[in-house]
């Protein structure tokens, strides 16, 4: 009977269509000689064949379609977690090179709107929660903040301007930028490790969108109305090439300043070592990591798994553990 245990698992897999061919034949062989497993197979087939799903109520669709009318409109996230810090900076450099400084002064309204209204995502370098320990600060934050001071260019622009890269002087760390440029129009089809919903917002993303996402939302109409071909709005299909003046000097990002490992807290499986829930005060171990604001006043933080023991001993609630991932995902609720 005990030998049947593993076959019960194979039966379960088979009924889910998740059994490979080799196991199928060994299972069939076993079933021939084991009435008990055959009965189990038939029973499970009957259970799984029963229609246990129910139809969703019509209120679901109606509520969703009503709800999205007032919900914030979705925006394309151009920077994906696989784009390294260097590449991100390089992309930005290309945009600046391609679009040129005068464009930004034309967009003064958008820029100042972005500067004046604190971005909902902007708990980055300027926020009191963040300390300035250079070791633990994501390099991308530093880079993007620095650039943001200069131009406050929206990263949304990258998607539109990147497909027509001007022969800009190539910064030292440009290696991934052309690839990113090619991918940009079809960003959704780029094969990536399966990242979850929350996993999608990497620290790199957060920093990138800090000060850019929100201003884009508030200013996109203005800039579009003004007929700016270089509006930071992803809905602008393309940018006329003649709008691109000669490039000024690109922003160099020395490669050796980029710690890619730190910028890319993404696990191969898309899973996390643990999900940690924190309320109240943020433990000091996490002060240097980017906070990404969620809709409901909470924040998510991605951090290396080596912080887990410290957080556990600080009494944080830990959801589950997966030894394969180097990333922990933290949901933080200030109180």
């Amino acid at each position, binding site marked *: 009977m005990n030998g049947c245990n593993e076959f019960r698992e194979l039966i379960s897999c088979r009924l889910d269509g998740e059994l490979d061919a080799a196991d199928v034949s060994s299972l069939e062989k076993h079933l021939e000689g084991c009435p008990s497993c055959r009965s189990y197979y038939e029973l499970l087939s009957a259970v799984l064949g029963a229609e246990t799903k129910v139809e969703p*109520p019509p209120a679901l669709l109606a509520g969703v379609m009503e709800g999205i009318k007032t919900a914030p409109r*979705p925006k394309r996230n151009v920077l994906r977690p696989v784009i390294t810090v260097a590449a991100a900076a390089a992309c930005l450099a290309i945009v600046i090179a391609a679009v040129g400084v005068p464009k930004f002064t034309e967009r003064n309204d958008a820029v100042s709107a972005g500067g004046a209204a604190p971005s909902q995502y902007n708990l980055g370098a300027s926020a009191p929660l963040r300390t300035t320990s250079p070791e633990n600060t994501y390099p991308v934050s530093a880079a993007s903040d620095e650039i943001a001071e200069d131009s406050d260019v929206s990263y949304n622009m990258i998607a539109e301007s990147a497909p027509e890269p001007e022969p800009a002087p190539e910064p030292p760390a440009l290696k991934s930028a052309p690839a990113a440029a090619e991918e940009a129009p079809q960003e959704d089809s780029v094969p990536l490790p399966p990242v979850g919903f929350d996993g999608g917002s990497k620290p790199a993303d957060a920093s990138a969108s800090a000060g850019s996402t929100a201003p884009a939302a508030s200013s996109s109409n203005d800039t579009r109305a003004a007929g700016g071909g270089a509006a930071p709005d992803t809905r602008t299909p393309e940018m006329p090439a003649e709008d691109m003046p000669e490039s000024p000097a690109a922003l160099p990002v020395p490669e050796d300043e980029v710690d890619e490992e730190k910028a890319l807290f993404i696990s191969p499986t898309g899973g996390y070592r643990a999900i940690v829930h924190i309320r109240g005060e943020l433990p000091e171990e996490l002060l240097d990591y980017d906070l990404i604001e969620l809709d409901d006043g909470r924040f998510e933080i991605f951090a290396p798994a080596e912080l887990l023991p410290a957080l556990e001993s600080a009494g944080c609630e830990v959801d589950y553990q997966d030894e394969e991932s180097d990333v922990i995902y933290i949901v933080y609720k200030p109180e």
Partner: protein
Amino acid sequence: MTAAEETLIINRVLSGDGDAFETLVLEHQKNVYNLALRLTGNEQDALDASQEAFIKAYTKLGSFRGGSRFSAWLYRVTYNICLDMLRKNGRSNVISLNYTDSDGEEGEYEIPDSRLTPEDALEKKELTEAINEAMEHLSPEHRQILALREGADMSYADISALLGINEGSVKSRISRARKSLAKILTENGTFSPEERQIRERRGNSHERV
């Protein structure tokens, strides 16, 4: 709907065509709702969670990356909302939040001794009801994984990524959940032991149990 069609629709939504989102809702609402229903355990919460999931998916659509299928991404959103809802309602015990599962503890659920046959199964509708009732007696962990597998039709790979456990653990956990379910269904008489028929078929010869 093929992945390519879905990508087109997603792009339309991202380009400002909010109405296009309806196609995505229609395509996925059954699985989302059934997942939520099994996780939350009641229709009102399931409706609320499903709506919240779709609206959140809409607003965050830009952060969906084509690397995973849209459905897997959407189910993860739904799953997180349901867990959150249970936590807020103080019912976090409904779904075990601790990853202290019984993977590896072989034989925790005994294979039912009696042979089972679906031949005596009740009428279809009654069978469904019996299964749903039996589900409620499963451990939270088992209910959860069957919700993902059977409520949302998720593949083992997607469940593995969502729960952050390897596929082997997914397989064995699903299998144990079903063994447990089978046991409950046998014990409550939904499926009756086959002994009688076996004897009829084979006389009173050896019983290899």
